């Protein structure tokens, strides 16, 4: 496999992992909305908390993590960009 192909394989894996995390916080949690709402977090019912704040915060963190790791993958294969803002 060429360098480019290896880079793309790793990029694809990273994308899939990120989308699994995304699917967990956007869908899987709410499959059990009724069941988890009797639990509590910070004093809020859990399903209410997740839809009002928790999942939203998770998405922010997921994207920061995704961007940082993808940058490392790009640099590992020599595809990082030199100029920066």
């Amino acid at each position, binding site marked *: 496999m060429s360098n480019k192909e290896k880079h793309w394989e790793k990029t694809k894996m990273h994308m899939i992992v990120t989308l699994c995390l995304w699917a967990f916080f956007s869908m899987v949690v709410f499959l059990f909305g009724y069941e988890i709402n009797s639990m509590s977090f910070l004093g809020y019912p859990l399903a209410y908390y997740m839809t009002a704040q928790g999942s*939203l915060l998770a998405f922010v963190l997921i994207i920061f993590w995704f961007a940082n790791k993808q940058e490392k993958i790009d640099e590992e294969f020599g595809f990082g960009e030199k100029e920066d803002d």
Partner: protein
Amino acid sequence: MFKGGFIQNLPKIYGLYTGGFLVFIILMAIAEQAGASAKAIGIMFVAFTVAIYALIGYLSRTVQVDAYYLAGRQVPTVFNGMATAADWMSGASFVALAGGVYFGGYSYMAFLVGWTGGYVLVSTLLAPYLRKFGCYTVPDFIGTRYGGNGVRFCAVLVLVLASFTYVTAQINATGTIAARALGIPFEAGVWVGLVSILLCSMLGGMRAVTWTQVAQYIVLIIAYLIPVFWISNKIGAGVFPHLMLGDEVARITELESQFGLTKNSAADVKAAGVPGGLKSIAVAHAGVGAGGMAVWKYISLAICMMVGTASLPHILMRYFTTPSVKSARKSVAWSLFFIFLLYSSAPMLATLSKISLMDPNLPTGIIGKSIADVQSIEWVKQWSSQKQVFIADFNGDGILQLNEWFMRTGVVVLATPEVAGLPYVISGLVAAGGMAAAMSTADGLILAIANALSHDVYFNMIDPKADVRKRLIVARVLLVVIGAAGAYIASMRITSILGAVAWAFDFAMSGLFFPLVLGVWWKRATREGAIAGMLTGLAAGTAYLIYVYPKFMGNPAWLGIDHLRFGLIGAPVCLVVMVVVSLLTKAPDAATQRMVDEVRVPSGRSILGRQH
């Protein structure tokens, strides 16, 4: 004080701007104490902020194509995040989101998840690759990747349909706010709103819109957060509401069972003469519905909004303006962070607003009090006269029950400062924030449509030899024409049909999501596949919308897929047709395959140059 170029000084410039705005708020507060009328303060807030945006728009004027379409590709990561957040959060988000949560409860909050989760798709699947491509517009990518004017035109079609659905609602919102703040009729307010919008974008295109959107974000987030924190502290709910309202949510649940949640029958509501669009609280604040259908309704709405987010051109094009691919990726994260600040506050505002009205232990509580007393409260009088709130004494006992109190959703944001007894200066600030939110989104949308028509249709299809001057003149003329068309439709007040914001997401998702994603992630995707996918996806989605929407054919929804979710029909059709047709047609040539390979790595030159 300002050494170096404009870009190096951005933090200083916007720091100064924020400080200046805070000083302005304080001056207005002093003016209020000195006896300035509420109306004068409202006018000052809206006029002052709009004048600042217009000044920024004028200072950002340009005669360069790459500055007009891409803001010169030099917008720093964090600032692009703020601009995207303003681009994203519409007048509807600002004014109606908290009200939606207030009346809709948990099932409505699927919108919150949908409108934020979509950014994960944007950052993983699209933004960095489109930035590497270097396109001016979204159809520019489709047209170059798949090759040909036919496919480019299909993309323009979807873009115009989705964006235009959205923009009339925004112009309507600027008109409503301008009309209220300046004390002029709605029809005139719409045109005042349009002129303000065009002042920001006409001379400088993307560059001007970028720098005004940053300024608008700062105004709108200050205007949203100050009331939330102030009310929370005033009623002793907690210093930091987002972490501390657990008790209030529990108290609301307790009060709901005490007062009883009753859904009024449509006949009762009509007989009592409740004005259209006003609602009473009939859904539990924090309760979750049981059963498979409730789960599916929630998740299907979230999916539509997420996939739609990742296909809306006015958002995607913001990431064409960053200096590099990695800054485009980071910029998505910052965008979502700035959006999160407002979206996570909306449920808190709904909670505070609800407890202020419901809790009999609070001086602001009205439920369970005598109707005569409630009707003599100043803010109730004022908002009743504008048909924004209404009391219907269904059981005739003279006591206000929970199901007898009606409000329009926007009132939750617009009136809560008054309800909680905050000074009028805060209401003026909220009006300025709503105006900023509506203007920034309208600007982004009008620019997306006008750029697609000027760059993709005019320059690429009609007159490829046009010089820069002529291209930019055409772009500006289109901007004015599209704005005027939007304002004209908004002034006819039929936006209850056109203004369904969710539809824009479903249209974009039906026609654009898979052609965009597969353009990057599937080399085998062909031009014929893309054309067939876009057209059948859009047609299937639209046909289903007509089939199911009550004002059109009004058939019962299939599997709970109603008119808010028609993208769930369009997008799968688009995917299947696109894959099948692609496999039946000849694979893209070697040059196209190489181009896709190039898009997949961040380093190196962009596919399309700065000037094209």
